């Protein structure tokens, strides 16, 4: 009996609201027991199990990935820190042995002086207030202040650290950020054809762009902001128009 998968499948691609319920109550009669196969379903973000029901807690579209992963794709702009995610932070203050970094969450995160590659107690990293930092969360939960590091577990920087001497930092929704960070992102590939630029994407919805001239930087920033609500065809026509216009 594929009731569980069937119930989910009929809603894939549909918009669901918080409070919608999928209930899987087993039939009362004795015959039903023989036919029931136990199926395993993984509830991703936006879905929560409550006894015999699965409840939706975020509004969005139900997505499915083989073999048994279901989740809600929501357009959210507010970032909630999660462990292991790489984000762009802005250094707000230096206090004692740590920097206070704004990551767009409810609390400021702390970044230790020693969490940079090659940093020792005598050799302090060159970080000023107002710098942009690309770093990863080591501690991020609702009970404690989040902590960031700019090195990985081996002690190497791995692309993290202070950056952004010039360029433009702007904010987009989290859904667009996930699309940009996907392995074969079409948006990035299409943008590359227009002109070369540097791009840093943080999972907290912050994107930093730098191109050869200020005008090109602004064009790339505007294109990324408008891509959010476009289908891929609309996007490609827009990019083609811009490429012809700029060349």
């Amino acid at each position, binding site marked *: 009996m594929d009731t569980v998968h069937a119930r989910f499948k009929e809603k894939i691609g549909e918009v669901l609201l918080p409070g919608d319920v999928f209930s899987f109550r087993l039939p009362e009669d004795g015959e039903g027991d023989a036919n029931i196969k136990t199926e395993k379903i993984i509830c991703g973000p936006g879905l929560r199990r*409550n006894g015999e029901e699965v409840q939706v807690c975020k509004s969005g579209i139900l997505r499915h990935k083989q073999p048994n992963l279901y989740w809600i794709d929501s357009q959210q702009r507010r970032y909630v820190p999660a462990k292991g995610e790489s984000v762009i932070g802005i250094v707000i203050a230096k206090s004692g042995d740590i920097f206070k970094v704004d990551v767009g969450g409810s609390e400021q995160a702390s970044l230790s002086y020693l969490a940079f590659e090659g940093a020792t107690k005598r050799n302090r990293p060159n970080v000023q207030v107002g710098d942009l930092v690309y770093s990863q969360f080591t501690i991020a939960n609702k009970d*404690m202040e989040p902590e960031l590091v700019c090195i990985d577990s081996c002690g190497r920087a791995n692309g993290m650290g202070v950056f952004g001497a010039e360029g433009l930092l702007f904010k987009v929704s989290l859904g667009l950020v996930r699309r940009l960070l996907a392995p074969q992102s079409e948006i990035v590939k299409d943008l590359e054809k227009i002109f070369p630029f540097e791009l840093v994407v943080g999972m907290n919805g912050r994107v930093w762009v730098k191109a050869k001239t200020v005008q090109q930087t602004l064009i790339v920033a505007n294109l990324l902001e408008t891509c959010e609500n476009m289908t891929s065809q609309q996007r490609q026509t827009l990019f083609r128009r811009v490429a012809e216009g700029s060349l």
Partner: protein
Amino acid sequence: MSPMKLCVPGFKDSFGEPCPPPPGARALLSYTPALKHTHICERLCSTEDCIPGTGTDLRHGYIFATLAGYVLRKNEGEELPVISVVRETEAQLLPDVGAIVTCKVTSINPRFAKVHILYVGSTPLKDRFRGTIRREDVRATEKDKVETYKSFRPGDIVLAKVISLGDVQSNYLLTTAENELGVVVAHSEAGAQMVPISWCEMQCPRTHAKEFRKVARVQPEYLQA
């Protein structure tokens, strides 16, 4: 105008008399017919009659009061009775070094967890004392690999042992580095009370999600079905 007399609890002043109570002390006391009230520095009796208890001090062969309150005389067997001064009629039980206390976690930090001490042994406390459980005192083994977030969460009820009373500014120092100490009652993120599965995991009965805690091994006779 009489000259100001130096009054230090327990010492006689320059006149050879026990120091008078500080002005206004008498106004704070209330009379009860059952217990005799006393004020600070009052000479109670000599050492030959009684043994000094809490709230008293022994000087020059006499017992002096160090607290303003009520005098209690207790007869304990064949020895001399114990004389003590208490602020209230019921003695306040203070957590002592080595006592098992029940406390509630109020906040956590990568380095320590702050708790409110609720019970000492099985006696509830009237005031909430503050305690700290440091990261290295959570477990007996692998102390440097302890993560506070995987041992306690705010709102957990924890059994701990007092290792130090601390000084004026710091709180009681507690430890859970034994099998019988640790989290007893915890609520999951869904709000249901969790069931312990092992010494480091608890499971929520509603969502079946497992969470990490430093779980106490409670003796079976103390568990209620």
